């Protein structure tokens, strides 16, 4: 049985898809058979970030409707072993994700994979609810600014009540915080919330801190998950997060101002 992990946030543009791609790739690099599913029906993006947009034939909604089987729709990643992508449909709307359909497809994937990573759309509407409904655990992606933190707080409240586990009375699913676009220099200047501020408000365990980095933008533009850029600070931070996710203890890096490293990032990114 796979562990089903939802990558969620509430707010848009905080790095959910980048994170889903990076975490899924990281898990696959660790030898875990992993599928990453795009729940953002109508605004699909994961295939671009994963660099497989030209190989999409069938999508998630096709599988739900029975137009194609899972094997036909899953795209095998060319760079990373053990990694598969299930793209979203660009031509449908999110209502196409029926509870029964999603349950059936995730159930089928569960048998084959070690991890199923669900990339949630922004918002708290149907698509986002479907992405988290069957999850065993959640990674909440948050930027260190007030509106993102508040939306994540709202999302945590929803995760506590609107998952299958919660509805069955089995309690809320475990949720961990991934702080992205973190800039220690801007925290120092008081322009950004610190790790402690965010944790004080959200009070959940910290999975990782991803520094603000040009490498993320480069990775997205070139369709290569940022963890494959192992030289980059963001790539390393994601790999640390994946290791923590698998139970390893790692120190948090890139959370303080390092003079040399900081300039290195400026010019080297």
């Amino acid at each position, binding site marked *: 049985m796979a562990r089903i992990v939802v990558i969620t946030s509430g707010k848009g543009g905080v790095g959910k898809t980048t994170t889903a791609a990076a975490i899924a790739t990281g898990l696959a690099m660790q030898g875990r058979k992993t599928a990453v599913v795009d729940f953002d029906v109508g605004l699909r993006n994961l295939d671009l970030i994963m660099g497989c947009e030209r190989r999409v034939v069938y999508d998630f909604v096709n599988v739900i409707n029975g137009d194609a089987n899972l094997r036909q729709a899953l795209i095998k990643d060319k760079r990373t072993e053990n990694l598969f992508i299930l793209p979203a449909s660009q031509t449908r709307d999110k209502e196409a994700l029926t509870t029964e359909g999603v349950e059936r497809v995730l159930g089928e994937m569960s048998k084959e994979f070690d991890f199923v990573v669900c990339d949630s759309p922004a918002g708290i509407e149907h698509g986002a609810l479907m992405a988290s409904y069957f999850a065993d655990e959640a990674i909440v992606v948050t930027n260190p600014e007030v509106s993102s933190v*508040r*939306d994540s*707080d*709202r999302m*945590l*409240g*929803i995760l*506590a009540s609107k998952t299958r586990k919660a509805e069955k009375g089995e309690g*809320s699913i475990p949720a961990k915080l991934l702080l992205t676009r973190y800039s220690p220099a801007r925290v120092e200047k008081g322009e950004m919330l610190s790790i402690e501020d965010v944790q*004080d*408000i959200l*009070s959940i365990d910290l999975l990782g801190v991803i520094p603000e980095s040009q490498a993320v933008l480069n990775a997205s533009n070139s369709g290569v998950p940022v963890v494959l850029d192992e030289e980059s600070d963001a790539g390393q931070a994601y790999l640390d997060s994946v290791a923590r996710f698998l139970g390893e203890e790692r120190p948090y890096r890139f959370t303080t101002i390092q003079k040399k490293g900081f300039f290195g990032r400026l010019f080297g990114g």
Partner: protein
Amino acid sequence: MPRDSARAQGDALRAIELKGRMMLVSILRLHSSDPKELDIALGARMAEAPDLMRDMPVVLDIDSLGQVAVPDLLVAFEHVRQHGFKLIGLQKGETATQPLADASGLPLLVLSGKGAASPAATPSPKPAEPAAPEPRPASPAVHTPTRVITQPVRSGQQIYARGGDLIVTGAVSAGAEVLADGHIHVYGALRGRALAGVRGLVSAQIFCRRLDAELIAIGGHYRISEDILDHERGENRLITLSGETIRITEI
């Protein structure tokens, strides 16, 4: 033997006890008897705070309806009931007369402090004189258990402790709302809205480890964030109502 029979007689009397008690009731004022209009308004009001409204005992004030036939009024009452309110009486007035009371089975009550409550306001309870000695439902326990929440109360969530106190061991986030008929204790930071004594208990208090609230209210009197001064915010705060003023002090 005689002693036993005397005791038996005493026991028999002890089966009931008649007492007078002050009691706060909410008044539901109807401005229309049209079932459709009522359904829309009641449904909307109930949707706002279902926890708060469901099974809420209310006294109906129908004076502003003017002359409406008794059967139509009975239909209107039934619609109010269907939305979850418990009717406990009719505010005596020109429309609410004895024949209507007899037909509806609701007692006529004379309440003091008439007027004031605007229909648009949040359900602000009106204090009442010890009207007719309202038969209190035989409560199995005198004490309403305190509601204890051990999870953080997150943005968008609403927690209501009906009939008693509320304890939150974690934080109340901005955008969250906690309500209680009694006191509210928050052992984390209070960043959202806290409303104590929502059914009019003016002696209710709010205790919090850290005050940074969006709104605090006691017995219908409130202060919004803008009116909470910087020096009033901070650690270990007690919020009380003194007259009509919300007071914030350090514990």
